[in-house]
């Protein structure tokens, strides 16, 4: 009988982001034949356009700066932001392995990070590293180079359309469309690829899948933009569900509060707000000229406050605060951030009532100068400066769909759990944003990268440890 399989590998990985490539690198150390399939004509997915922010508890930079931190503290931050909807076991693994994973990217991949930490909203302490080029491509490029060294092929334009299970319910391989032209699902040629050891699903989130996301969260209508790459769609997740995977919290979809109204997607403005506007500046309601929330709150709280009663928000920061954003020059060049010599000019250009704005800034500055507590609960660290050094910068904000907390259920070994038996589906692993539960109601900024790489590596190692089938 002629075999239905056109090709056979030890391990078949779907998706070439952080999760897929880390799995490939770990698996490739043990297995001679590993392949990564990617539906887009370019590798890297959301990972390569991400901000390259990486949270690690108990890191070398924290030690140098004498910042007290621990995986326990990171975990408690995750649970607080996640409203305790997190899968605690998985969340704990991310927190505990965060520093180990960070060091792996440095030692094994040669990733370069900036020599200072950032303090992102919702984190109790500054624990966020940032790649030297302020982008996830600073990690994706070395990962791809490593795969090339190891002889692991990344086959582009190859779209996973279906998983194929044995009669006994084991994962056996995948049906793909080769020479696929995104997003045409009929394009390409059908082909079946068998996995001797295991299949790893790493297809990322679905923030760009307008049809699917509005089913999960009816508030996320078509007209709401997203920060994601075009290929962040749900087919990989759906294929897994069809193969018996358990869906977890698919309706928990996060919006980013820091995105700019004046550019598409994530752009350069988001990093400006995250690194400068929120920690070193203030968030203002354009109509009232007043603050309305702790700028360093977790994303969900921010977005909820920003969207309530149709607020329009801008972030304001002065020259000292603006320095913290490495994307400032690009923001100014593209008109995403505007520069003003005085608060008066800033208010006029943004249609903000001047008197309340001035008062707001004065009150905020005196909080800092006198070391008082902020009524919104914003942490005011010792090195925070009053907003008083011109020029002043402003950025107009709008919330954009950013991250899918939900996905398929996995266990601590990154095995996909069956919806009926609650047992792992044999030879089937998943990692990264396509999985659900780690972050609960809201993912903290810079926590996705440690999650994707940590579980990617776990999946890769465990898949490679499977005995090859005959």
């Amino acid at each position: 009988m002629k075999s239905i399989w056109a090709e056979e590998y030890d391990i078949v990985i779907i998706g070439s982001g952080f999760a897929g490539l880390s799995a490939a690198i770990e698996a490739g150390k043990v297995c001679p034949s590993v392949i990564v399939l990617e539906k887009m004509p370019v590798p890297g997915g959301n990972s390569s356009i991400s901000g390259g922010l990486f949270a690690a508890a108990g890191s070398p930079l924290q030690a140098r700066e004498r910042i007290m931190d621990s995986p326990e503290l990171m975990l408690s931050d995750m649970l607080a932001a996640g409203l305790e909807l997190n899968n605690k076991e998985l969340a704990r693994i991310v927190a505990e392995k965060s520093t180990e994973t960070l060091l792996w990217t440095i030692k094994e991949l040669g990733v370069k990070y900036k020599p200072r930490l950032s303090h992102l909203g919702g984190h109790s302490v500054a624990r966020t590293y940032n790649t030297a080029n302020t982008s996830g491509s600073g990690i994706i490029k070395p990962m791809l180079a490593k795969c090339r060294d190891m002889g692991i092929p990344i086959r582009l334009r190859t779209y996973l359309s279906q998983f194929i299970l044995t009669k006994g319910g084991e994962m056996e391989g995948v049906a793909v469309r080769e020479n696929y032209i995104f997003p045409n699902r009929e394009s390409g040629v059908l082909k079946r690829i068998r996995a001797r050891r295991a299949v790893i699903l790493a297809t990322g989130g679905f923030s760009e899948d307008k049809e699917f996301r509005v089913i999960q969260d009816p508030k996320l209508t078509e007209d709401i933009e997203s920060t994601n790459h075009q290929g962040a769609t749900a087919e990989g997740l759906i294929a897994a569900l069809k193969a018996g995977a358990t869906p977890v919290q698919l309706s928990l979809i996060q919006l980013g509060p820091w995105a700019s109204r004046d550019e598409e997607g994530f752009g350069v403005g988001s990093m400006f707000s995250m690194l400068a506007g929120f920690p070193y500046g203030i968030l203002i309601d354009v109509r009232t000229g007043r603050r309305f929330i702790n700028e360093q709150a977790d994303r969900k709280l921010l977005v909820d406050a920003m969207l309530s009663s149709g607020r329009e928000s801008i972030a304001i920061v002065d020259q000292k605060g603006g320095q913290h954003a490495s994307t400032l020059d690009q923001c100014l060049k593209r008109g995403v951030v505007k520069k003003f010599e005085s608060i008066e000019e800033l208010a006029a250009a943004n249609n903000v009532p001047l008197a309340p704005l001035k008062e707001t800034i004065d009150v905020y500055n005196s909080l800092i100068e006198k070391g008082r507590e902020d009524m919104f609960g914003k942490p005011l660290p010792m090195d925070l400066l009053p907003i008083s050094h011109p020029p002043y910068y402003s950025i107009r904000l709008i919330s954009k769909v950013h991250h899918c907390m939900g996905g398929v259920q996995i266990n601590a070994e990154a095995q996909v759990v069956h919806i009926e038996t609650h047992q792992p589906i044999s030879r089937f692993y998943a990692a990264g944003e396509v999985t659900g539960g780690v972050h609960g109601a809201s993912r903290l900024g810079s926590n996705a990268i440690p999650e994707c790489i940590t579980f990617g590596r776990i999946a890769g190692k465990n898949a490679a440890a499977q005995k090859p089938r005959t």
Partner: protein
Amino acid sequence: MGIHEATREIRKSENRIFQEWLCDVHDSGYHGRVSVDRKYFSMMLDTVAAAMETADENLTRSRFDSSAEWDFPGLHIIKESGITLEAFLAGFKVMIRCIERVILHSDATRLRMRNIADAMELAVVAEWENFRPAGLSLHPEPIQGPESPTTPEKILSAIFFSVGEGILLVDQDFEILKTNPRACEIYGLLEQNLIGTDIRTLTDESGAGTLTLFFEKLIEGQRLSAEITGLYVDGKSFPSTVTVSRSDLDGKRYWPIIVQDDTEQKILEKQLRQEKQQTEEMNLTLKTVLKSIEQDKKDFENRVATKIRTSVLPGIHKISKSSHDNVSRSYLSLLEQQLLSLTKGFENELHGGLLKLTRTEIEICRLIQAGCSTKDICNAMRISYETVQTHRKNIRKKLDLTGRKLNLHTFLMNRSL
């Protein structure tokens, strides 16, 4: 305060009124529906002020009852807009309240302004279907992005997106402003990654040098190409051709760059080159073969000459000297054999052992080769039967034939001596 004074005051205090208005609109619960655009606000305020300026002291509502008389300064910009009548009125009324709060203290002027405002309001309501204030979308300025493109623009952008070559638009800072999908594919980077990237990071040092040079010396409308190394996202380098031109816009320079991945072309070129090299090598071999044939021919001629000198001529000499018939016959057949071997050319093998033979032994071998029996040899060489036998034994030893069932004649048959 008279009405004209009040009007001047309104215009002078526009900023303060605007601030108040912003706050009030927010509190009124109409925020989100009323535009907070400054231009729109100024237009409304201007209308009220203008109406008050032209109004006489006996102003009545009726002046505004008919839209024909209604002189709205912003009329020309009142066009399509999504704002509802209700939202417009809310913003308008709030503004009147703010004016009152900020400047109008006398009851008389306040009343007059209210009259004017009411009249305007009525007129707007009556005429709502016919005209609407302009620019009143939820977002004061349209969110950045192209206005709906015309058909030729759409076609142009479709071409831009679908051409088989990569296109990059680069500015004075070497920063990439725009790319098409093919360019993304060539470098393995998403559009989001490529935009904002320094073009020089996509090539090696010499490629960066070439580009810098092009940027410096290109004049508008000129086009230059070069083959430079491209860098793929995984660090692999590939051959590419870039064609750079320049276009100036609003005093700034831009460089549209067309990129071609030459990997396949280079493979084809390499194959062609290899094929060419192979034919050249073959030519060379043929030449050497011809040369060696030439040489062999010379060698052959030399050998023939030597052989005639060493083997044939002495034989003839011997025959001429000999009186015995038997001897002459042997030498004649020997001669025949020698001549035959000359015509045979190079096919005969040379055996290492043959070189060890003495002259007498070689002579005996030649006789054997020629088919002479031991007796014939005794006669021909005038030596005893035993001596020939001893020679034969020694020959066999030297040729490594002792103990082998191989006839000396057979062995010697195809060998040249």
